[in-house]
């Protein structure tokens, strides 16, 4: 569960963003801002994660006046464990190439440099 090889860099970045506040429900726009993903990329990722039981979703119960209800997301326990494993593997993989061979031009979008904040 949650092996880094399973996740694309974009998926990993969503997992990382969600695992930053594991107990809090987060909005799609907040996640988009944290990850830098467009809505057309972010939501299919959230759908896949929800299908696998790694993310749970619900509708906001009390929307702001004049605003529609928002869809909220957070990691499930499985998702939290998977994210922790995936991020740890990502950090390990990040460390190994830099130890053996410097890759100054490596792009984060190629799956080599996903920013991974600490997972609680």
């Amino acid at each position, binding site marked *: 569960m949650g092996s880094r090889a*399973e*996740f694309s860099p974009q998926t990993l970045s969503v997992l990382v963003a969600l695992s930053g506040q594991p107990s809090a429900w987060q*909005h*799609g726009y907040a996640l988009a801002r944290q990850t830098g993903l467009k*809505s057309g990329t972010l*939501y*299919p990722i959230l759908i896949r994660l929800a299908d696998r039981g790694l993310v749970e*979703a619900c509708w906001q119960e009390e929307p702001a006046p004049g605003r529609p*209800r928002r*869809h909220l997301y957070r990691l499930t326990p499985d998702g939290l464990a998977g994210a922790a494993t995936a991020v740890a593997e990502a950090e390990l993989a990040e460390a190994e190439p830099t130890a053996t061979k410097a890759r100054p031009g490596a792009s984060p979008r190629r799956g080599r440099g996903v920013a991974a904040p600490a997972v609680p």
Partner: protein
Amino acid sequence: MSWLGPVATAARRGLVLLLPAARRDWAEAVWAEAHEVPPGWPRLAWRAGGVLLIAKEGQMSRRTGILLLFAAAAGAAAWGAWPGSPVSHGAAVQGGIIITLALLAGLPLLTRRVLGPPDTRAARWLRAGFYAAILAVMPAQAAIGLFNGAVPRAGIDRHVWDVVQGAGVPGSSSGGPDWGGEIAILIFTACYVAVILALTARRTPVAPATLAIGVGAGLALGVVMYALAPLGLNFKYPDRPWLHGSAVDPFVALAWILVFGAPLVAGVLAGMRCHVPGGPGEASVARAWQGFGAGLVSGSVGALFLTVSGTGTLALLVRSAWVRDWLYHGPHLTASALYGRELYATQDATGYFLLLVGFPFIGLLLGLVGAGIAHATGSLPDNGGPGGPPGPGEPEPVPDPPDGRRLADAPELAALAGG
């Protein structure tokens, strides 16, 4: 521009409907979240992402493709069938075309709510084939009606027309049946479409294998009947370009055998394949359904194949010298004789209507008889006991995946499922 908002909302709701029910929340979520995005380009880009989501998630390519294909085929059929010049029954023909297309578009939505969508490849292909056949018949029928109803102004053709058709107003044209005829055709078309939609829906008791058996038997019947009489059952001038036989020709005998034999054999085969792990009562009911379905499908497919190919040949006959030479074995006929034969042939096109009514009834009756034979011989066990080959059993309808698509449909999902 106050209308723009409601139009955009309606368009968005229409787009969301393209998604499977389990995915609609996600599309709504994107739109709801758009209110949090700064207005202008960022919000527009966010909503564009929502459209992209619908395209990715909604099997949009398939559904849109089907819609576009149907729209194109319906448009082509209407264009081909639409009365080009003022004819006496033009309004009836136009009304018939419009209502037929509305039936073809609307009835699947109705049956989908009641019986569910088609969920097997056999069911989808059978529906597509029926729709294609009905759309193909429309312009062919119009061309035949226009030719048959056009009264020559004078000359030998006028005399021939009077002999074949009776008196008519010179230069006039009926171009098709009147309202009474159109209504009869519409009711008949609606029944045909409703039956085939019901037989191919998810909650039908007819198995996909039964549909395949019925289609096979029906095509065999239709091909042989067409080979025997490519211009319909015209006994005055039988036109058989490759068969020169008479009523006792072996091929004629084969055709008659197939009319009754094809649904019977289809019913037997469908009944034999039916395996029900219940009591004898349940097994007999299940086999009866398979026989009913196989016979009805074989009769309908046979009649429809014959009608499409026959009316298509007739429509080409009145327009193409090559087809005339092929059917009448060379240009040895005088112009008036040729015109007379064409009139007789097109006049007999109404006979296809009788075939379309008769074949399915013959089919369902003989299919039931076939299923009864299969049940009586008991070639397959009802409880897995001895008595026959281990049949594959009644294929259960395969439910749609929760999101209405396969796992490997998206690279992202394939990556997630890879481990």
